[in-house]
């Protein structure tokens, strides 16, 4: 979504939708770090991730949106909750959730914000979304993954494989 809105081509519905979803995501993100209960925090994180999926839908990127739901809401968060519930999820409030290094997070967050805004502004400058909002077909996505971006894709798969093997090695005692 472009930050500068000119009078001619405002997509009213999309902008209202964006605003509402963004507000929900921000509230959710704040709740993730302020909540006094681990499970509540995790559920707020679900809200943020589902909000991201909704934003992708607004950008007519259906495939990415569905992937976001499948990977983050359906798999990562379920495993996360699964792990938390197996180990320590108490009902009610917990007092000792704050890490003593919590303040370190502030500069890191600001740095992330700066880097990401710079990359986005530098990459797109004042390009607008196409008026018709052409949907990116699944075929186009796979064509670009398996043609120009094949090597990075392989590298990523290799990193993930290494992580999986590492996890198995750590988990097994024998």
């Amino acid at each position, binding site marked *: 979504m472009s930050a500068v809105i000119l009078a001619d081509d405002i997509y009213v519905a999309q902008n209202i939708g964006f605003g509402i979803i963004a507000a929900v995501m921000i509230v959710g993100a704040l709740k993730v770090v302020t909540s006094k209960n681990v499970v509540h925090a995790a559920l707020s994180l679900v809200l943020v991730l589902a909000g991201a999926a909704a934003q992708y839908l607004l950008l007519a990127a259906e495939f990415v949106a569905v992937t976001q739901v499948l990977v983050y809401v359906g798999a990562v968060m*379920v495993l996360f909750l699964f792990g938390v519930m*197996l180990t320590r999820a108490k009902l009610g409030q917990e007092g000792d959730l704050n890490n003593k290094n919590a303040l370190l997070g502030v500069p890191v967050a600001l740095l992330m914000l700066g880097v990401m805004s710079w990359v986005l502004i530098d990459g797109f400058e004042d390009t607008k979304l196409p008026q018709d909002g052409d949907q990116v077909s*699944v075929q186009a996505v796979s064509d670009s993954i398996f043609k120009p971006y094949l090597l990075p894709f392989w590298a990523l798969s290799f990193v993930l494989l290494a992580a999986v093997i590492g996890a198995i090695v750590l988990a097994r005692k024998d």
Partner: protein
Amino acid sequence: MIAVDLPYWAQSLLRVLGGTVAVLLPAGTIVYLFLFKMMSFMQSRLGPMEAGPYGSMQLFAEVGKWLQKEDIQPALADKKIFKIAPLIVLVSTFILVAVVPFGPDAYFTDFEAGVFYALAVSSVSVLGILIAGWSSANKYSLLGGLRAAGQLIAYELPMVLAVVGVVIQAGSMNMQQIVFAQNHGSIFGWDGVGNPYVLTQFVAFGVFMIAVQAELTQTPFDMPIAESELVSGYMTEYSGFRFLIFFIAEFANVGIFALIASVLFLGGWGVPFSWFGWDSMDAVDDWMNVVGPLIMIGKMLALSFLIMWVRFSYPRLREDQLQRFAWKVLIPVSLVNIMLTAILKVAF
């Protein structure tokens, strides 16, 4: 293609109504036909006979009973999450039906990545089950929720991998395109029955139906609600209309997964296009919009009959057997199936 042009709001209204019917009608039918009647006949008893002819109004009586019950929540429960959990399960059921096509124009959304969407959305209900178990403040509930999460994650993989075979063969993830590819296809040049993928992808069909049985937590995969071990698993503390929501979601999911399976493997709403000389999606006659949903309901009933038949026939697996079966049998089999399908697709 139908020439009537409805305004956007009217279309949306029709689709919402259609979606509600497509969720509740199969759920009610499955509960009455299979859960009440078929199970009773298999056990040499009559089942409900009092409410309405042959007990056909029994379901309405049950719903009325559940709605009147007191809304009980455990004192220690996490009240807010306890209330949200069944809704997450039911909502994921309702948005799941949005990609199922019922006819050439009778669809809710013509989503390009339709199958992928169905698999993604069906995984959201795990979240509801997991937090239902946790928020009940009951050890049996928590165990049930954890079992459910482990089981649903394990069986989602073979389900996705089984669908990949179909997607490779159809060359599309769009449900309408998959229906078209099956009814317009031919098996070695013979197009008498089209090419329903249950014939060419029978391995994927087997894996998919077993995985569906496990995703729906129907016996022999009902460890999450195993009544002899965990009282009623994650549902233990739910009563009244909150239990009703879980109950509706369970049987609506049976119906919707049967619908999705019939689209993927049995040719969906279509009849073999060669019978009527249709050679593209646009050439399909308008009356298919009426006949298509009936065909879908027929196939849905046949497949959910299969699911319920297995449910009433087999004893429960053990937890470790269930995990071993998913990871050591179903996933390797479906991976081999993907490889063979890809080789054959390139060869022919």
